[in-house]
């Protein structure tokens, strides 16, 4: 059975697109047929993070309006088998996307894929609701910051009320992904801890991605950071995907280790 998973947050710039690209890549590496849908109409970021921007011909809206077939719009990943993406439209007309159109596309994708990851736009309005509406599961991406946690709680409220599952009296399985986490600042009590966030939001934690220079390096090159298996963020995304598939892995990169000279010289790359 195909699973539809929305990656959502409320607040913008917290790492949804970064997470969608890396988790999707990791799922495909495990052999799961995976497709990523960019719902961020007008911005189109996911193809940049995936490094396939020059191969975009058709987009999500072209399919829903019948201008293109799904097979024409799907972009096959160059690096990983089983991985495809569906770009967002550059149009400024955000109403061009309809629930009916999306339902048709998702139903068609369900025939071909195991996982359909929906990269949500920011906000708690129509665009975000559209990205989550058909979801079976949700990954709520949160930064350790007041406005981000608050928006995540609002998004959790929408997942509980504005999705098709909610309307049918079922629930969307929801988990928490804390990104841009800085254990040193947490140690200094300048940043909320994962435990604090988990307690406030009251949904199960499924991953912590540290603040990492590897993320910018990866997005500069258009290679999802999970490919950088030396990096902390890359490893954290691998862990996250494994947990998402039901594996039990301990959280890493959540404790601050004061670096001695030795580990500074030979320790893992940041």
């Amino acid at each position: 059975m195909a699973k539809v998973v929305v990656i959502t947050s409320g607040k913008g710039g917290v790492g949804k697109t970064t997470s969608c690209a890396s988790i999707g890549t990791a799922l495909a590496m495990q052999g799961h047929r995976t497709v990523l849908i960019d719902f961020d109409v007008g911005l189109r970021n996911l193809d940049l993070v995936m490094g396939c921007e020059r191969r975009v011909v058709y987009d999500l809206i072209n399919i829903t309006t019948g201008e293109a077939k799904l097979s024409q719009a799907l972009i096959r990943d160059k690096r990983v088998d089983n991985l495809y993406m569906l770009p967002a439209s550059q149009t400024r007309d955000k109403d061009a996307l309809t629930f009916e159109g999306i339902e048709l596309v998702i139903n068609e994708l369900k025939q071909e894929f195991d996982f359909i990851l929906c990269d949500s736009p920011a906000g708690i309005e129509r665009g975000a609701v559209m990205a989550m509406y058909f979801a079976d599961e949700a990954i709520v991406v949160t930064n350790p910051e007041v406005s981000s946690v608050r928006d995540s709680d609002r998004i959790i409220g929408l997942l509980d009320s504005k999705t098709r599952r909610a309307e049918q009296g079922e629930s969307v399985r929801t988990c928490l992904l804390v990104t841009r986490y800085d254990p040193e600042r947490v140690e200094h009590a300048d940043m909320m801890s994962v435990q604090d966030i988990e307690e406030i939001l009251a949904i199960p934690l499924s991953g912590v991605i540290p603040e990492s220079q590897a993320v910018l390096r990866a997005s500069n090159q258009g290679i999802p950071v999970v490919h950088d298996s030396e990096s902390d963020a890359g490893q954290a995304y691998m862990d996250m995907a494994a947990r998402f598939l039901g594996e039990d892995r301990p959280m890493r990169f959540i404790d601050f280790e004061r670096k001695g000279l030795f580990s500074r010289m030979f320790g893992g790359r940041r």
Partner: protein
Amino acid sequence: MKRLRSFFQKEACPSADVACERLKIMINQDRMQRNQPEFLPRLQSELIEVIRRYTQSDQGDIQISYHNLPQRTQIELNVSWPATRS
């Protein structure tokens, strides 16, 4: 071990703790608003009107809070007014 550093630094209140406190209050309010019935704002303003007809309460002396209990829904009404000595 947690926040050992801040303990020694004797900061007035670590900023992360302030963040948590503010969040808990905000999110409680958000959740309350999310779950409350549509008539609640009208009920609230009518209650306030009636209460003020009888007491010398300020708007701020009347607190109405809304709770979702497992089996029931509850509003809690707290009213105070200046003491009148006879």
